[in-house]
């Protein structure tokens, strides 16, 4: 630890404190519209952190992550509306259901090549969405509405600000969990599997069970985000859980820089914020979004805030003789 790294560490701590203060103070300074948008950012932070475990840590490309988001949201919504259950009780039930579905789809498919895994997850995502559209107990195309607000005793969390703080609490817990799990034995095993599966197996890691754990934890977090999403919106329908949604969540992870936690937060702000900021230009905003994505990738191919953990893969990728192309090293050195 030289003086330079001390300075960097204190800058990072200062940034983290500033971000925390800004997050806590936001509803006091902003109007309800901005608070609602910020709450949506928090939903994407939760989703991004969950998918980051699957894609960023374990290196498994998942193109159907919205399925777990949907299962969580529908579990809470149906239990609360049809069975009058308390929101807090539905969270563990939704978590169990999503984790179980993660295991069911993950167990037979995690031995596959990564691009085949991508297509299987994509198919799973479509199956869940179409099933929700076609079955009557999930409300068909109309979905479930009239979902009650969560309450603590007599206190009903109905205002934009109170739901924002609830979302902030979830996001903070998931953030700390992600931070710690990345530094645990399991986190190191995920990185080993991501970088070189054969070497990881040779080092005594059970790669299938390691990947399955990433998948199940990712599913659990996606389901929790879904439960929160249901009570935040009070009405859900299948159009919230399309393939485009899965792609949006994946973009949160990749935009920020895979495996990087500040990157996920930044990615969520961009993915939610950019289309909102472009709302005035309704007709061209999706076009601008598409062009913006290409430009962003051309200018910062490693994401907005790349991870510093386990940069070995990036060093090797930069060294390996590949196609003649622009050097991409400047992003990897942060």
């Amino acid at each position, binding site marked *: 630890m030289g003086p330079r790294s001390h300075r960097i560490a204190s800058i990072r701590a200062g940034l983290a404190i500033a971000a925390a203060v800004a997050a806590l103070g936001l509803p006091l300074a902003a109007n309800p519209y901005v608070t609602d948008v910020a709450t949506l950012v928090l939903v994407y932070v939760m989703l991004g952190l969950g998918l980051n475990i699957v894609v960023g840590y374990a290196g498994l490309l998942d193109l159907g992550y919205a399925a777990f988001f949907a299962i969580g949201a529908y579990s809470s919504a149906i239990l609360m509306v049809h069975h009058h259950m308390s929101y807090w009780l539905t969270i563990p039930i939704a978590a169990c259901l999503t984790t179980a579905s993660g295991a069911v789809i993950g167990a*037979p*498919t995690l*031995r*596959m*090549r*990564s*691009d*085949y895994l*991508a*297509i*299987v997850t*994509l*198919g*799973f995502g*479509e*199956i869940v969405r*179409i*099933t929700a*559209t*076609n079955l009557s107990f999930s409300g068909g195309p109309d979905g479930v509405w009239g979902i009650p607000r969560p309450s603590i005793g007599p206190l009903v969390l109905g205002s934009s600000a109170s739901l924002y703080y609830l979302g902030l609490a979830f996001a903070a817990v998931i953030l700390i969990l992600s931070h710690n799990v990345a530094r645990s034995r399991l986190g190191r095993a995920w990185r080993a599997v991501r970088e*070189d*599966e*054969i070497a990881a197996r040779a080092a005594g890691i059970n790669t299938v069970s390691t990947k399955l754990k990433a998948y199940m934890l990712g599913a659990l977090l996606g389901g929790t985000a879904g439960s929160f999403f249901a009570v935040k919106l009070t009405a859900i329908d299948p159009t919230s859980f399309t*393939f485009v949604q899965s*792609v949006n969540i994946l*973009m949160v992870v*990749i*935009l920020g820089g*895979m495996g990087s936690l500040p990157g996920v937060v930044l990615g969520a702000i961009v993915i939610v914020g950019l289309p909102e900021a472009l709302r005035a230009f309704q*007709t*061209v905003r*999706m*076009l601008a*979004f*598409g*062009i*913006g*994505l*290409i430009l*962003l*990738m*051309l200018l910062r*191919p*490693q*994401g907005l805030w790349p991870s510093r953990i386990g940069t070995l893969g990036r060093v090797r*990728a*930069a060294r390996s*003789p*590949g*196609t*003649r*192309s*622009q050097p*991409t090293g400047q992003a990897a050195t942060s």
Partner: protein
Amino acid sequence: MDVALQQLVNGLTIGAFYALIALGYTMVYGIIRLINFAQGDLYSVGAFIGLSMLSLLAALHVRNALVLTFLGLVVSMAATGLLGVLIYRVAYRPLLRSPLSILISAIGASLTLEYSLFLIYSPSFLVYPSLFSTGGPALGGIVVSWMQVTIFLVSLGLMLALYALVHRTKLGLAMRALAINQDAARLMGIDVNRVIAATFFIGSALAAFGGVMTGLYYGQISFLMGFLAGLKAFTAAVLGGIGNIPGAMLGGFIVGIVESVAIGYISGRWKDVVTFAILIIILVVRPRGLLGERVVERM
């Protein structure tokens, strides 16, 4: 039995469209390991350019259906092919070394194409001119139009031509060399960028052919038509064994037939569930796809 045969005929027609799009996916993946998300949208672009061309020719009082179709196809395939090359040059070539960034860039390219069509043409469905009668050969209780026969045969012809190109010409040899080892190919004096550009051109042109034919067959097109078709075609490419050209054709026809049979026997609402469920089962049982070679994840 008639229902089964009828759905088989319809499935072969839809399957031809999927196969045409899937070829582009599989060729690009085979060479640069990119899932080109814009591939399905190039199919839409092809349909729209074809429509513009047909309208232009109609304004010029060209009446002959065959001339119209031929010119519409040729112009649309050439323009879409060039667009595919342009997308490669701008959005993919600088990112060839970062597999996930290039994937996001491809998603960006897909959105850009979709919403360009949305702005330039229309947010709603557009009507395609109906150039051909719906009559066809009588085959007992089954309805087959000449159009379906033509789509199937011409698509098959194009695929065979592509297969011949890849296996009989110097360009095809260069493509296959590139797919095996890009650096070694370059050392042998192959102009890598040109071969990749040619691959994008061919893949996009084939998708455009499918797009124009889809317009003529269904009579309407929309700026989002390539999204689900692209998804199915990608499924088809993986099903056949991604990177494998006959596999993409086989996969396309299988996806088309499975979908039609699901419509005929279960219901249209569940067809995609059946398609994807069968896909997952096949991949679990035979992870390298139907015709794919055993590929090691990484050497």
